C-alpha cells in the first residue's frame, strides 16, 4: 500500500493560495453579470427583457444586476446581440438587503469556526460546491473552518436551497439546537430569493422568510471560492463587496 504514499508525494501541493493570492486557474468561477452601460436605451431594455428572473433592471442606458436573483442561465451573454458584461471574479458575498452592519463573529472564532450545513431543498449544485471546500484544492481546514457533526457545536448555519415545506421543520430544529453566537448564511440564489422555484405552496422562497439571515453568497451555484469568501467574511477576515448600488435599485 506504500504506493499511495508515493502517489501523494508526487502530486505535490495543489491547494489554492486564496485568500493570500487570487486564484488564477481557469474555470474556478463561472463569473457573473455586472452593471453595464449600453450605447442605447433599447439595448438595456433588451438585456432586462431576456432575463427570466428579473435580475436585470434597465434604467436609461444602464442595466443593473441584482446578483441575488441571477440564476446563471447565461441568456444575457449568449442570446442577445449586445450582451451584458460579465465579471470573472468570485468575491460576491454580501449582506441581506436593508442590513447595514456586518454581523461578523467575534475574533475568537476567526481561526476556528464550525459550520453546520443544511440542505433545505437544494438542487444539489450548491451542496456539491460546499462539499468541494473539503477537497485538497480548496482545503478549508487550513483556514480554520470545519464542517461539524452536530448543531450543538456549530457557530454558523450554512443553508442551501429555497426552503421546501418538508424541510422547514428540520431547518428550524437545527437552528434552535445551536448555541447563541450562531450566524446564518444563505448560499445560492435559491436560498436568497427562492431562485427559479420562487415562492409557492411548497417553497418558502428563500431562507430569509424562515430565519433571520446574516450573510448571503449569491450565485447559482456560487463556486467554492465564493463560498470560501463568504466564510472569511463571517469571521471578519474579508469584507463584503459594495452592494450599495444594488440595494438602491432594490429599494
Amino acid at each position, binding site marked *: 500500500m506504500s504506493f499511495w504514499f508515493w502517489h501523494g508525494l508526487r502530486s505535490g501541493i495543489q491547494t489554492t493560495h486564496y485568500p493570500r493570492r487570487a486564484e488564477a486557474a*481557469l474555470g474556478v468561477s463561472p463569473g457573473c453579470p455586472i452593471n453595464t452601460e449600453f450605447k442605447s436605451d433599447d439595448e438595456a431594455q433588451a438585456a432586462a427583457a431576456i432575463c427570466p428572473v428579473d435580475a436585470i433592471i434597465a434604467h436609461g442606458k444602464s442595466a443593473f444586476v441584482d446578483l441575488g436573483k441571477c440564476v446563471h442561465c447565461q441568456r444575457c451573454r449568449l442570446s442577445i446581440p449586445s450582451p451584458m458584461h460579465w465579471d470573472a471574479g468570485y468575491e460576491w458575498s454580501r449582506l441581506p438587503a436593508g442590513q447595514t452592519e456586518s454581523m461578523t463573529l467575534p475574533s475568537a472564532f476567526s481561526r476556528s469556526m464550525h459550520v453546520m450545513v443544511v440542505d433545505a431543498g437544494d438542487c444539489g449544485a450548491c451542496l456539491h460546491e460546499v462539499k468541494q471546500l473539503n477537497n485538497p484544492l480548496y482545503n478549508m481546514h487550513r483556514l480554520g473552518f470545519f464542517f461539524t457533526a452536530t448543531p450543538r457545536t456549530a457557530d454558523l448555519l450554512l443553508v442551501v436551497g429555497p426552503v421546501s415545506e*418538508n424541510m422547514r421543520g428540520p431547518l428550524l430544529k437545527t437552528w434552535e439546537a445551536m448555541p447563541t453566537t450562531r450566524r446564518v448564511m444563505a448560499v445560492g440564489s435559491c436560498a436568497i430569493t427562492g431562485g427559479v422555484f420562487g415562492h409557492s405552496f411548497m417553497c418558502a422562497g428563500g431562507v430569509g422568510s424562515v430565519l433571520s439571515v446574516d450573510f448571503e453568497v449569491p450565485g447559482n451555484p456560487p463556486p467554492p471560492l465564493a463560498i470560501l469568501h463568504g466564510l472569511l467574511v463571517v469571521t471578519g477576515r474579508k469584507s463584503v463587496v459594495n452592494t450599495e448600488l444594488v440595494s438602491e435599485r432594490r429599494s
Partner: protein
Amino acid sequence: MTACSSPTDENEQIGLSDLTAALGERFRSEVSPIQAERGYVLTLSLIQPGSLPSLCRFLFWDLGCQFGGMIAEELSGYWQLHYTFLLPGSGWIDVLLSLPIETTTVPSIVAEVNAVDWHEREVEDLFGIRFEKHPRLGDFVLHDQIWHEGIEPMRKSFPVNRPQLERKLDLEWQPSLIVGDPGSFAMPVGPVYAGGLGESVHFLLETVGEDVIRAVPRLFYNYRAVEKLAEGRSVSDVLLLAERFAATSAFAHSLAFCQAAEKIHTVEAPPRAAILRVLICELERLRHHAGAIAAICESTAFGVSTAHASIIEEELLRASCVLTGHRYLFGLNIPGGLSRDFESGECERLLLSVDKAGKDLRILESRLRYSSSFLDRLEDVGVIGIDSARYLNLVGPIGRASAQHCDLRKACPYSGYEGYAFDVPCEKEGDGYARLRVLFAEATQSARLIHQAIDALKPGAVRVPCDGSPAGAALGWAEAPRGAALHWLRLDEKGLVERYHAITPSFSNWHGFHEAAEDFAFQDFPIILATFGLSATECDR
C-alpha cells in the same frame, strides 16, 4: 470487465411486428393499438381498466420489456394514465388508460410490475387517485405530520400560489414500523446529517442489534413541486426548472426536456448540435462518475484516494466551466439545439483535460484494486442479485452492476448515439465493488465517446428555430449519469406547458435501495449508500 451482449441476441430480439401480432392474439378485444405517436412507437389504448394488470404482466415478464414509468394527467374531463414500457431496440410502448374524471380507484399493477410501486404512491398523494390492492399508500410526497389528507396539489383546481395555511405539526405522528417486535428498535438517520454533507433524505433502520433488518427511506424533503410550478408557463421558463431540479445531472435532464419540446414542434436539432450534445452529455457523465467514485472512497474513510478522486472531479468541473461558461453546464441546451457553438481550439483544450482525467482514473483504479482494506469494505456488501434487479427494474450503473444491461443510448438511441462505437459495461455480482467497477468502466467509455464526438464535428449551425405554438404532447428521454431519465411534456394551444412530468433514475433506484441495505451491518450502511450514489433532489423534483 465484460461488455454485456444485448439482452436478447439479434436473432432472438422481439421486433415491433412480433409484438403487435402477439398482442392481437391475446388482447384483441381489450386494446386498440395506435402506431408511432408522441415519441412512442406504439400506443396501446385500453378499453377496459380490468385488463391492465394482465397486459402489463405480459409486457414486463413475457416480452421482457423494461418498465419506464407512469405518467398521470388530468385533462379536461378525464384522466389519462400512461404506463410506459421500453421494448429494447424498438422503442417506447405506451399503455394508455383513459378514465372519466369522477374515477377514484384504478387497479394497481404493483403485484405484476413491482417498479410501479412508488409511481402509484406518488399519483395517490398528488392527484388523489387510489390504487386498489396497493399495500402501502399515503405519507409519500406530502409528509403526514405536516400535510392533511385530502390535499391534492397536482389537481388543476389547486392553485400553485395558494397562501400558506397555518399548519400545526402533528406531534403524535409516528412512522409505521415493519418489524416492531419486542427487542427491536428503529434508528432514524437524516434528513440533516451528522457530519457528512448529504442531501436531505431520511432513513428508518430497523434492527434487533447488529444487522439492519428493514431500511425504509423517506424522501421528498426536497420536493419543490417543480411539475406544478411548470404548469401555465412557457417552454423557456420550464427549461430553467428542468435544468435546475437536479443540478448534478443538469445537462441530461435538460436534453430530455428539449427533445420532448422538439418532438412537439416537429423540429430536429442540427447535426452539429446533436454531436455537441453527445460531447457534453459524456463530459457530464465523466464528471459525475469521478464524483461518485470520490464519494465511495470517502464512505470507507480512505482519505488519500478520496483526495485524488475529488481532484479529478474538480478539474473536470473547471474544464466544463472553461468550455461552456458554467461548472454544471447550465444554459446550454435550448429547444432546437444549443445556445452557443464551440471553436475547435476549445474542443482540443477539453480533450487534454478529458485525457488527463481518464489517465488519472486509470491510475486510481489500478491502485484501489490492490488496496485490500478498501476492497474488504465493498466486496459482498450491499448485494443485489440479478433476479432482484430485474424485479425492481433498476436502471443505470446500479442496474448494470447486477447484469441489467439496459442503456438508453443503445436500447433507444437519441441525439445520434447509434453512430458511435462504445460498450455498455456490465457486471454480475451486484455488490458494492461491482458498482465501483461499472463506474470506472463507464468513465472510460465516456472519454472514448468524447474523442469520437470531436472527430465527427463538422461545421454548421447549432440551432434551428423552435417557435410557433403547436399543441401536443411528447416523451423525451436521455441516459442520465445515474440512469434512464424520461420527461413528458404537454403543451396547450398557446404553447404553454399543460403538464410536465419527469421520471428520474434516482426515483427508480431509491425504490430498490432497501434491497441492498437490508441484512447488512450498520457500519456498512454509509458505504452501501455511497455505492448507490443516488440523489435525493433528483428523485424529489
